[in-house]
Every structure is written in structure tokens, then in C-alpha cells.
């Protein structure tokens, strides 16, 4: 399943690139992300609550970033699994300068299995794009300072004075400070990426939608 899209972020390319590689940002901005653990350089383990109806569940996954060409592109490989099914995705992310803003493009090739695979392509891609859009909006809010608390609230749960990406660093989503639009339960994608953000997009997959009330 192919998913692609673009998003314009109100920060320069270097800032976007950094944000997308900052686990504290990611855990606060990936919709439904509960926990993000650094496994090593450019590798994360994450837990995302996602789904609705028959594919609602908690998904555990891993994301690796490769092929870095800072600050213009990277590839994100994600794999996730939860009770409702599995998702694997390769996502190519490219960043382009546009007068102080950044145009981010992603192209994902996702493979889904289990129940998730049975809900229809348009629904999967629709949810993925929606999650990606939401994720980028959240990132943009952080970059523009509209959601400063997101960063501040996402402290490493295990003290790790060094860089946030040291292996074993664990980041959990601030319970009360999720950016607008990132209500838990809307799912997403999995994958995400680490960096990239793309996360949502990536993975595409989780479907989700939110339960009212």
C-alpha cells in the first residue's frame, strides 16, 4: 500500500530536521504515542494506542532511521504489532526549504497484516494521512512555540543526562499536555518515526478514529 503526502512546516529545514529527530518532541506529537524508548543511534521502540472498533489496540513497534542526508532527507523503517494486526513501512522523507518554511514530503510503502489488512485501502490511507497531518500540525505547533508545554512536559522517565537518544532513554507522553488535536486514541501510524515524523504517516496504518464521549 502506497501512501504519500506533503506538509508545510513554519520553521527552517534544520529546525524541522532536529525536531523530527528529538524523541521528546516525537513522544509529545505522535498521535496516540504513549512511550518512546531509544534503542541506540537512530532507533526507537515505541508504544502507540491506536485503532477503533475491530482494530483498536495498543501497538508496539520499532523505528529506524537510515540514509540520512541532513537536513534534506532520511528513510524511516518502521514495524509494529498489536492484537489487531501488524504493520511494516518504509518511508522516504524529504525536506525542502521554502522561504524560511519547510516543505516536507513523504512516500510510504506499507504492508499490513491481520485485521488491519481487512478494513480497506482507502480507510487505511485515509487514517494514515489524517494522522500524518495531525502529527505535522503538532510538530509545527512545537516549532512555532504555540505548544511549548509539549516539550517541557516530556521529560525522560529514566534520568539520562546525555543526549536524549542514548540507548535506554525513555520518553513518555505528558498526560495533560498533549497538543491540541493529538487526543489519544486517534491513531496512527505507527511508525513513525522517529524522526520523522512521519510517523503517522508512515505507518500508516493504524486506523483510527476516535470514540466520541
Amino acid at each position: 500500500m502506497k501512501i504519500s503526502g506533503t506538509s508545510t512546516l513554519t520553521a527552517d529545514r534544520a529546525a524541522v530536521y532536529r525536531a523530527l529527530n528529538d524523541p521528546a518532541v516525537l513522544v509529545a506529537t505522535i498521535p496516540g504515542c504513549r512511550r518512546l524508548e531509544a534503542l541506540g543511534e537512530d532507533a526507537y521502540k515505541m508504544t502507540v494506542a491506536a485503532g477503533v472498533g475491530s482494530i483498536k489496540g495498543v501497538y508496539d513497534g520499532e523505528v529506524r532511521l537510515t540514509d540520512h542526508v541532513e537536513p534534506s532527507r532520511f528513510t524511516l523503517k518502521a514495524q509494529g504489532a498489536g492484537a489487531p494486526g501488524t504493520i511494516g513501512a518504509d518511508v522516504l522523507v524529504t525536506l525542502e526549504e521554502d522561504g524560511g518554511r519547510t516543505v516536507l514530503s513523504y512516500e510510504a510503502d506499507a504492508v499490513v497484516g491481520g485485521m488491519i489488512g481487512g478494513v480497506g485501502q482507502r480507510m487505511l490511507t485515509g487514517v494514515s494521512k489524517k494522522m500524518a497531518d495531525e502529527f505535522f500540525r503538532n510538530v509545527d505547533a512545537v516549532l512555532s512555540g504555540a505548544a511549548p508545554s509539549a516539550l517541557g512536559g516530556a521529560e525522560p522517565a529514566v534520568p539520562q543526562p546525555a543526549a536524549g537518544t542514548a540507548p535506554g532513554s525513555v520518553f513518555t507522553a505528558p498526560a495533560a499536555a498533549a497538543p491540541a488535536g493529538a487526543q489519544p486514541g486517534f491513531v496512527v501510524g505507527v511508525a513513525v518515526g522517529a524522526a520523522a515524523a512521519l510517523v503517522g504517516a508512515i505507518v500508516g496504518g493504524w486506523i483510527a478514529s476516535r470514540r466520541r464521549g
Partner: protein
Amino acid sequence: MTTKLFGERVLRAEDPRLVTGNGRYLDDLGHDALEVAFVRSPHAHARVVDIDVTEALDVDGLVAIYTYDDLLADSEDHGTRVAEPLPLLIPHPTLTHGRTQHALARDEVNYVGEAVVMVVAGTRYAAEDAAERIRVDYDFLPAVVGIEAARTAAHLVHDDVPGNVAARMVQETGDADAAIDAAPHSLELELSIERSASMPMEGKGVLASWDADDESLTVHTSTQTSTSVRQAVAAKLALPVDRVDVVTPDVGGGFGVKIVHPWPEEVLVPWAALRLGRPVKWTEDRREHFVSSAHERAQLHQVRVGYDDDGRLLGLSVRVWHYHDAYIPYGLIVPIITSTQLLGPYKPGVYRVEFESLYTNTVIVTPYRGAGRPQGCFVMERTMDAIAADLGLDRSVVRERNFIQPGEMPFDQGLVFQDGRPLIYDSGDFPASLDKLRKLVGWDDFEAYREVARAAGRRVGIGIACYVEGTGVGPYEGGHIRVETDGTVVVSTGLTTQGQGHQTMLAQIVGDELGVPFERIRVTTGDTRRFKYAVGTFASRTAVMSGSAVALTARTVREKALRIAAQALEASVEDLEIVDGDVRVKGTAPGQQGAHIDLGAVAVLSNPLRYAFDEAARRATQFAAPADPDKPPVEAGEHPGLEGTDFYSPTRSTFANGMHAVIVETDPDTADVKVLRYCVVHDCGTLINPMIVEGQIHGGVAQGVGGALYERMEYDASGQLLNASFMDFLMPYASEVPEVEIDHLVTPSPLNPLGVKGAGEAGVIPGSAAIAAAIEDAEGIPIRRMPISPSELFHLRQTHGQDPA
């Protein structure tokens, strides 16, 4: 003696359950199932450009959204055939341009109502909410709507079907044009019939459950053919047929529309259940039924007929334009029936018929009760009346002179019927039927009645119409009968039932054949878990086909029962009889010690046992009685159990017939048409249950009156159905349906063991023909198109120079 059942007005065993609200219809099942709603095309002809589901994703309870792309991916991933067009069920060599739809539209929609997106959710409410939020972009294409647009073919429905013509077929028995040209008299008529539809109170519906552990699929569907749905679903989903069962619950009417299969929903719902691993259900709503199921009847006819001074036909040439509409899954059955059954009880001289079956951008046409016969009857009977008018002869006399005589049976019309077999009438006594009808309606006294009415300022008219109906088409039906050890008789047949009283009728047959009381017989239909070989319920065939099959089966079971009882009673088979479920030596008193054994005990003995699981079973165990040590307990050629299966497969259809007479009154001011009397003489051979037959006739007449005076499908020029609700589509109520006066003529069919002929459709066939004749008689204005509304009659009066009174 066992109370005689066959031929009696036995009350329907089904009714206490059905009329007290205890029927189990499709929507009564599967309360925990996911539910489905469809996004259907709002356009008659368009290309699907884009489908955007984004707005639907927020709907609480949404589970899945499917489009054609998912079907395609599924066929690639799983080897299924869900992405292929639905089957063309009845191929024919002349059907050179057959097209069928995809379960979900691929890139083009061809009628308003064609399914484009399938939504699955926890509830129907959620599914409908999500469906409403899905945006489909279309590029419009010119819609081909109506007879003229299809024939002129300025635009095509399918790009690769020139002239919008799917098939052109000619049948002829000689040079009809030459015969007509040489005839002393000839005339031409142009006739047409509008669209109507089966319109069962219960629409379609499907419930499917996939058992992943057992790898089996169970489908409940409101169908007229569970066995063929089973085959079709298995083929589409690439499942072994053995892993699929189809059960037909109570069905709230079919009238033909549910013989079509697999409907898109019958493929999609089981497919979704398979992929989601959960039960999935869809229940058709009324608007869906109007726009996305099927209609019938619309045809245009040109008639040329040549005849002698007495009104005898010398040559008849008919051209038919039949509208099958967007797709043609059921093939050419309707126009084939029209073009053959048009002949009715008459000898046409030399006959030629040619039809074209045309595509338009409206919902498909498939058989509706009568299935092309009402149109054919309308053509022939209007022709008879025109000849009588031309020659100044009594209309009944012209008919009589053209009748096939009883001594000419079996009569070969020289054509090929809908079952691919020769159109040979097997039985009937048309002069006797006409005599009965004239007496019943008071034909000879009518002129006096007309004068009395006229003196009172009333306009009345009388019309008659005759038909012959091929019923009980093959290829076969079967039956299975097992006698349980408690004496209960369990009967299964594979075709389905939609409220006709099949359980009662079949129990009457089995009861008499087997000598068992009615109350002890249980009949199951339409459940492939019980009986896997069947064709379906259509063409007035259940009594003929399944009735004959269970009769034959009952005879084999009876033979076996007598064989076993003869051993047990140490009597010879010839000396035994079965009375009230008890096998006894003829001439002995009921219950006489050692001279009788009840069927339940025979069933016990039929199944040699090792284990005495209950008191009755003791008799069949190894130490219960001395046995021949040199014979195996189950002898060669025998099977355990008092049961049997048999099939009935006739060489060709049996032909029922009937004649209707109608008296109408037309309002001189409003042109309202009121049916004053409706008389039916009916010959369906031997009657199994006259009450049920009469009920079938009543229902048929109601639909015939509806088709003649009220029902039509109002499409606008862009292919929108304007009256797709019961507020706008007029069906007759009890207030519009006349009391039906019935007389039976019984000419048994020589083709089956019961002498029966089908009765299910008969009542509807001559409705438009007879009512048109009566209105014409009352008004003195030729009636060439049906149905006719008061407004149309009013305008006809003006056209013919009659001032509004």
C-alpha cells in the same frame, strides 16, 4: 384410515407462527453482527474519478470501508474472484454482448443505485453516518434512459456494445410475412407495457459468519435459491463448496427478484465476514430495493397479423423491444418467455417473433412474477380483440376458433422454450375453460347489464384474456425423507420458500404417500446443511418439481419401511399397509398384537445398534432378537436408517393455463377505473391444496391489477427514479383488489407423478390484457399501452374526440 391430505384444503402449518410475529426473517438474525451500508451512485451514467473517505473516519464504530480497489487487491493477494464481474447466469448463443456489473463499481456506474463503496460498522446507524460522509467524484456521461434513447443509440450505455443491443433473437415456424400478405385480412398494432417490480415486503438481506477454526462460512440470505448462492459464493471467495453453507430463513416475499444471484451484496457481505473474521450483516432498505434491485415488464411490441373471415389466424409476426437495462445477469429469459408464451392457447398459423434486448442506464430487469408472460399475453389478447373488432365478431368466439383442441394435445408450437426444450403443451382443455369462464362471469348476459348501467349513466365494460404458462421447468429438484425413531417424519428439499405454504403442501404429499398424519411431518426448505442439490424457486415450479421429488422419495422410504416391517412381522410386503404412521397387516384391527409395528419402531430396526442409548434403541441391539448369522446386519445394497433421497427431473416443462374475465366501470367524469368483478378459470392440473392455489391466484390478481392500473417506475430523463418509496409508488391496497371469483378445471399433467402444474404466477399474467380489454369495451377507445391511469384515460378520451362529460 389416515385422513386424506392430498387435494384437501389443509390449513397452512406455517401460519400460526408467521401471523403471530414469530417468523425469523433475515433482519431477525445476527444481532451481534457488524452492519453494512453502501454508498450508491446518485448518477445514471458516470465515471468514478475519486473517492474520499476522510470525513467518514471520525464516525464512532466505523470498522472498514471497501472500494473496488480492495476487491482487486484481494484477488491478487488471496486468489479470490471478487473483483471479476458478477456471473452472467444464463448464457445464450444469441446473447452476443452480455455485460454484468462488478460487486463494487470499478470505474463506471451505469444506473442510479449501483454500489460504489461498502461501509462496515458496529451498527447500521454508524455505517449510514460514515457512508453519508464519503465523497465520490464523478465525471458525468450521457444517460441512456427510455425506449427511444436506447433504440436510437445516439449514446451508448457500454462503449463496446454497439446500438445498445445485447441480443437479437428470431424464432419462426415458416414465412409469416408471406402468410400475412396472403391472408384475406390483416392488421397491425403497436403496444407497450410499462415497468413495475416484484416489490416484496421484505427486501434482500445477507448475514455471513466465518468460523476461522472450522474454516467454514455460513451465509443466511433472503434468496430464492440457496444452493446456487452457495456455489456462487464459494466460487467468488475461492472457498471449497464444502466449506460454505447457505441458509434461507423465512423470506418475506420474492416474486422473482430474489432468484437473481449472487447479488453484489451476496458476494460482499460474506467476503467482509471472511476478511474481518466477524459476522457481517446487510439488510436492504426500501429505497435501496427500488433503485438497486431489479424491475421488469417494460417492452414495446409491433404486431402484424393475418386472418381469415372467421378470425382464424393465418400468420403472426411480432417484434419485441425488451429493456434489460444496465446489465444482463439473468440473460434473455424474460424476452424468450414473452416471445414463446405470447401464443397462449392458440394456433397462430405461421409465426415469427424477433426481439432485441437493449441496454439503458436504469436498474436491471430480471424476472418478476409472470416473467415476460403478462406482456406476451397482452400482445396476443389485444390482437384477438382487434381481430374481433375488425370482423365484428364476439371476442370469445374469435378466441374459441383459434384454440388448440384437447385432442391435439400434446401440441408442439415449434419453438424453443426458456429451458432450451421444445415448446410442447402437455395438457389443457381450452374450450372447456372458456365455457366455464363465460358461465362464471355471465358473458352472454353482459349486454343486458350494460344497457341497464347505461340507463343509469354508468359506463361498464367486459374483457377476457387467456394464457398458457410453462411451469415446473427443470433441470431437477430433490427430496430427502427420514423417519425418526419417535415416528416424526423429517422432509427436506433444497429449493426455498417465500411464504407460499410449501411446508404444508409438501407435508400433504408425503403424508398421503407414506401414510403418516400431517402433524407428524416436519418440512425444511432452502438450507444447504440439510439438502445440497437444488435449483431454486421460480417459474411456478415448487409443487411440480419438489412435490414430485418428495412423492418419489416417500415411495422409496415406504418400500423400505414395508421391507423391514415385513421381516419384523413375519409377513409379506404385499400384505402390509401404512395407516396413521402404523405399519399393519391388512385386514387386522388397529393395534392387534403381533400384526402391526409403528414407523418409529421400524426406524429403530432399520439402524442396527450396538448401544441401547434409550428404551426404543434396545430393539435394535445385537442380543435383542435372533438374527441370521450368515448375513451382515446391514445387507448389501441397504443403508442404516429409515430414510431415502430421490430426485425428479422432467424432460420438459408442464403447461398450466387459465382465462380471466373482468368487468370494469369507468367514471364518465374522472376517468377513474373500478374493477367490479374479476373471474378466473384456472387449470393447474391436479390440485394439492385448493386453498393454497386460490391464495396464489388472489395474490397474482392483486399484482395484475396493480400492474394494469397503478404501478409504474417513473424515471426522469437523467435516470433518476422519482417514485422510489411506498408513498409514491402505488401498489393496490385491499380496497383496490377485487374479490376474485374462481373456478377450477383440472386436466392433469401427464409429465409428473402427481399430475400437477404450477400455480404460483398464473394470477398475474392476464391482468393487464383483461383490464385493457374491459376498459376498451367500456370506452370504445383502443387501449394500446398499460398501465393506464385516470389521467391517461382522460387524455385518450380527448384525443378520440370524446368531450369530458
